[in-house]
Structures are given as C-alpha cells and as structure tokens.
C-alpha cells in the first residue's frame, strides 16, 4: 500500500515538473515555432560521387551546430527541440525536387541545407520559393542561384563558379603564365566553369590558346589525346586548367603526371578541388597545383579547433562544405533565436544585410540584393610531399582574397 502511494506521488511530481518545464512561453513573450520545434533538413548525395565531400559528414556538421547552439543558449534557447531530417538526392534533379517537397510538407522541415550538384540545387530553389520555406545552398556551384533563378527564400552560402575562376584564373595568370589550355567536362557545370575561367584569364591579361570539352561522363577514362595536344599548341600554354571534378579530376591528374607535362613546362591549375580529392590523389601527384578554396581546416587556430572536434566525430578532416554546413545551420538557428519565430519571412528579414564572423565566414555578409553570402576566399597551393608533416595537411594558403573581391557584384538578372 505504502509503495503504491509512493509511486503515485512520484508520478504526480514528474507530471507537474514536466508541466512546469514545457508549459507555455518563458521570458521573451510570444514564441511562435511551428510544432514547437525546429527541423533542419540536410539534402545531399549520400552514396555517389559527392558523398565524401558532403554526404553524411555534412549531417554530422549540422548536428555539431545544434549541440553548440544548445550549449550556448541553455535555457534561453528558443527551443530545445531541434532535430535533423536527411535524405539522399542521388545527384538527380527530379529526386531532389520530390525529396525537398516531402521535407517541407511532411517532415516539417524549416530549412534545407547543402544540396550539391547544380541542376539539383536549382530544383530545390524552385521548391523553396513555392513553399515559402528557407533554403541555404552550400554544395552547388552555379551562379544562377543568385542570378536569374534567385528568390527570396534561397541563400547561396559557400562558393560559386565565379569565386573559383576569379581566384585561380587571375592569380595563376599573373604568377604562373599567361597562356592557358582549358579542359572541361562537356556539360552544364563544365561549360559554366570554362566561361568563368576564360573571362577571368582575359581580364588578368592572359589568353586561352586552346580549349576542349571532353565527353561527360568520360567512359573510356582516357584524357591522353588532350594532354598530348596541349604542349604542342602555338603559342605553347604554360597552364593546363582542368575543370573536371571528383573521379574524372583524379583521372586527368594521374595522366597529367604520366605524360610529365610539368617537366614540359605546362603547369596545372584545377577549377574545383576539395581536400578529399587531394587525399585520394596524394599531395605528391598534385604538388604545386593552385586552386581556390572557400575554407581550409588548418588555416588558423579557430579552424583547427573545429577540425579537431570534427575529426573526433567522423574520423576525418572537414572539407569546406562540411564547415559551411556547420556555419549555415548555426547562423539559421541564431536568426530564429533573434527573431523569436521560425516564420520564414521574418527570419529572411533578419538575415538580409547581416554581417557575420564565425568559424567558416570571415568578413562574411549576407547580401540583401541577391542573397549571396560573401566572405573571404583563399588561394591555395598543394605542398610538395616533403613539406607535408601530418595527414590531411596538404595545402598552404598563398593569399586571402577579400570578401568584396572574391564574389561577383550582384547580378542584374536577380529580382528577389
């Protein structure tokens, strides 16, 4: 008998406590969160070509941001119920389209993050506009997201083709050589990259002496025709600019080394490269190659501290996309905290024009005109093998490109 009463009292106490804890708004007044919680959606490639540079580790980065946000705000946090939904878009625009709609409509997602592959990203931007829900793109490169396909609910976070071409094209032309031969995969991304690079090279006083669109996907895996052609062009190119990505980039670089083009006076510049690519090619294969990086894990103490925590969670060092996912999730949560609501229009108003400095964004600013998030970018060079002193520390940063110069001015095509 006594025992029953004890249990009853304990139960009552628990119910009361729960009631106090969860009951109604605390200080701060009318908090309005749909479903009393925040749901972050990470939509990316979890099994294909981009699953290493984004993939599940992007989800981990977002989870780290949630933990940090909760630790920072404690009881004052707008809510403690913050969860992550995730889906694999397989780099297919149609899959991305339906998964995004499902996330917003059925999973209660407030914001979609990541989304590599430009064609998929453009679809998600359309869905965000239609559903009036937020979308922070990180993984895709196309400038169209802040150009003619821009919209009120879409923000472009980490990098774009202009940033890559502007940094690498300009500085390589000035420092390595004026004559370029460009090799690009013949589809939307590659063609965009070729145009951006040609423009940047010409603007820096260089010239493109030859360019070729290689088949995409290149089923034979062979690039020797182009690599043999390059040194024989007139005038002779001093730089081979390759716009291939992922496994195709690996093929190009392996064969570039096989034909010893560096010894023949043709340097290498890479359009888009992630730290994971350097890891798989080994720094020896890429030594001396310049490229533009949006963030590097061993750039300073703050980055390194984040990279150490990330490595504890995942066993690997973060790519810039991982760090950007962390930052984007954090900045969104802060914006909701400041607004006191997850209402998309209110949050957008708070984000526009905001200046931010965090582990990923240095001198960052969210442009109100086109929702491009500008920040410092970095011109990086792969170290010679002899200078690599620890795993994953493969590059040195040659130059910081100030935020204002790193990205293109807002496009007149963008009407928010």
């Amino acid at each position: 008998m006594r025992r029953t009463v004890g249990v009853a009292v304990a139960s009552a106490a628990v119910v009361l406590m729960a009631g106090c804890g969860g009951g109604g708004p605390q200080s701060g007044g009318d908090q309005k969160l749909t479903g009393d919680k925040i749901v972050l959606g990470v939509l990316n490639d979890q099994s294909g070509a981009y699953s290493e540079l984004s993939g599940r580790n992007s989800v981990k980065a977002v989870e780290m941001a949630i933990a940090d946000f909760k630790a920072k705000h404690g009881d004052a946090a707008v809510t403690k119920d913050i969860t992550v939904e995730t889906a694999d878009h397989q780099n297919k625009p149609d899959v991305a389209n339906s998964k995004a709609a499902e996330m917003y409509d059925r999973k209660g997602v407030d914001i979609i993050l990541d989304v590599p592959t430009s064609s998929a990203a453009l679809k998600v931007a359309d869905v965000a506009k239609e559903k009036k829900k937020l979308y922070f793109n990180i993984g895709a490169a196309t400038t169209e997201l802040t150009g003619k396909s821009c919209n009120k609910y879409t923000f472009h976070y980490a990098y774009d083709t202009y940033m890559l071409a502007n940094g690498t094209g300009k500085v390589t032309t000035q420092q390595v050589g004026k004559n370029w031969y460009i090799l690009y995969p013949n589809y939307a991304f590659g063609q965009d990259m070729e145009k951006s690079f040609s423009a940047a090279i010409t603007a820096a006083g260089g010239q493109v002496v030859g360019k070729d669109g290689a088949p995409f996907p290149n089923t034979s895996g062979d690039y020797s025709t182009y690599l043999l052609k390059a040194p024989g062009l007139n005038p002779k190119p001093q730089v081979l600019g390759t716009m291939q990505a992922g496994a195709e980039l690996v093929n190009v670089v392996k064969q570039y080394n096989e034909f010893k083009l560096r010894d023949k006076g043709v340097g290498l510049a890479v359009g888009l490269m992630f730290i994971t690519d350097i890891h798989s090619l080994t720094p020896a294969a890429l030594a001396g190659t310049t490229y533009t990086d949006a963030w590097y894990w061993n750039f300073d103490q703050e980055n390194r501290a984040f990279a150490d925590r990330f490595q504890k969670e995942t066993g690997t060092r973060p790519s810039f996309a991982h760090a950007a996912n962390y930052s984007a999730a954090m900045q969104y949560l802060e914006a909701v905290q400041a607004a006191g609501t997850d209402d998309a229009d209110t949050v957008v108003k708070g984000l526009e024009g905001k200046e931010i400095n965090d582990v990923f964004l240095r001198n960052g600013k969210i442009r109100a005109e086109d929702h491009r998030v500008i920040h410092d970018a970095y011109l990086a060079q792969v170290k010679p093998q002899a200078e690599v002193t620890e795993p994953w520390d493969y590059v040195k940063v040659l130059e910081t490109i100030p935020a204002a110069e790193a990205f293109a001015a807002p496009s007149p095509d963008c009407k928010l």
Partner: protein
Amino acid sequence: MTGFLQNTFNGLVSGAFYALLALGLAVIFGMLRVVNFAHGAFYMLGAFGAYVLLSEAGVPFWAALVIMPLGLGLLGMALERAVIHRLTRLDPLYNFLLTFGLTLILQDLVKSRYGVQSSPYATPSALSGSVDFGLFDFPTYRVFILGFAVLVCVAVWWVLTRTRVGMVVRAATERPELTPAFGINVGRWVTPVFGFGIALAGLAGVLAAPMRAVNPLMGADLIIVVFAVVVIGGLGSIFGSVAAGFGIGLVQAWGEAYLSDFPIVSQTIVFVVMAVVLLWRPAGLFGREEAPA
C-alpha cells in the same frame, strides 16, 4: 605525323583494356552462353585489390599482377558453382539479371568499406619513365600495358588453337550441342573457363590501377563500351572481340583528336559504329550467322 602516331598509340593502349575485358566476356559467353554483366565489377575488384594489397600489406604491383587474377579467378569459379551454374538451363536473361545483381552487391560492398572517393595507386617505379621512339616519347607504363596485353592475347590464342583444352572450348563454342555427342565432357571445362574469363578482368583491373581513378564505379563506366565492343566483334567470337577491342580504342582516340569540334560525334562514335556494324552484319564483324543454340 607525330601527333597522329601518338594518338594511334594511345588508342591502342585504351584498346588493350577493351580487348582484355572483351576476350574474357567472349570465352565466357562462348562456353556458358552467359552474358556476364558483372565483368566490370571484377575489373574494379582487380584494381581495388591491388590498392588494398599495396596500402595494407605492402604487396608491390608485380605481385598483385599475379595474386589478383588468381584470386579473382578462384572467386569466379566459386560463384559459377554456387549460383550461375544453377541458372544456365534457363533463359539467358536469368543469368544476365543475376550478374547484374552481383555487380550492384560487389560495388556496394566496396563502397561501404572504402567510400566512393578514388584511392591512390602509384605507377611502379621501374615503369615510371618514358621511352623515346625518335619521333615522340611515350610513358613507359603505357608501352608496358600494350606489350603485356598483346602477349596475353597471343597466349590465349595459342592455347585455343594449339592445345586440347582450346579445341574443346572452340568446339563447345561453335557447336554446343554436337560436341558432347562426340563423347567430350564439356561440363568439366565450364567452371575453369568462367574463372579464366574473370581472371582476365581482374588482370585488366590491376593494369588500370596506376593510370585510372580507382573507385567502386570504375567498372560500371567502362563495361558499357566493352559490351559495344563485344557486339561489334561478334558475340562469342574470340578473335572478333580482341580485334574490335583494339579497333574501338583507335576509333575513340582518333575521334577525340580529330573530331573535337563536334563533341557529340566524338562522344557517341562507338555506338554509331556499333549501329552501322549491326545493320551491315547483324552477327557482328566476326560473328557467325546461325540460329542461336
């Protein structure tokens, strides 16, 4: 002229891979009437095996060149006994689907352990220089691949034409119903021939590791072209598959070099050739037109 020779040489090197893979497909199809869709996956396993042996056990390229084909050949024989054998009596479509499923399983097993990122594999130091041919110089490793592949093809040709095993295989390929009637135990040779075909794929994979991206999908990209090669050469024709392999390598290299202003043409040229050949000779260039067995 120099450029033409270089492109020709490169075409032959690409062709060497097609020839080795197509040769394996051809002997397997000839003997078992199985279109082995998993051939690309075994090619991938050959390259990945070489990478794992080197990075985790320090086994050099030369040893991998022996170990991987042998190991994969045995695995192939085990698979033939365990599953493929059971479906050979049924419509060929069953084994096609089975090997397609096997491809997905093998790819995903490698993916789940090593990820999709390409793995590094350096060219063996003895072959890392280049050979001077007077008019042009060429990477030693590519010269080696070409020489080695030609050697393997000649050896296979010798075995098929000069030995008793070869006679049985050719007889079983050309007259599958008549051969057993002469009291020849064809069944005995089915499993080793399947293993041999797989070993050739593994060999091509090891050869590819130093010059191609080593990742779980490397075979899936290549196998489509190899199927086109086999169809052009004539399904089951051993000489045809080798000739078409080198031929397609050349066509691709020349197409990329001289039709680069028409990317659509240079990208699809293999399949254009396939379509033309099928219209002209439906059984392929070296295939025999006869009612299917």
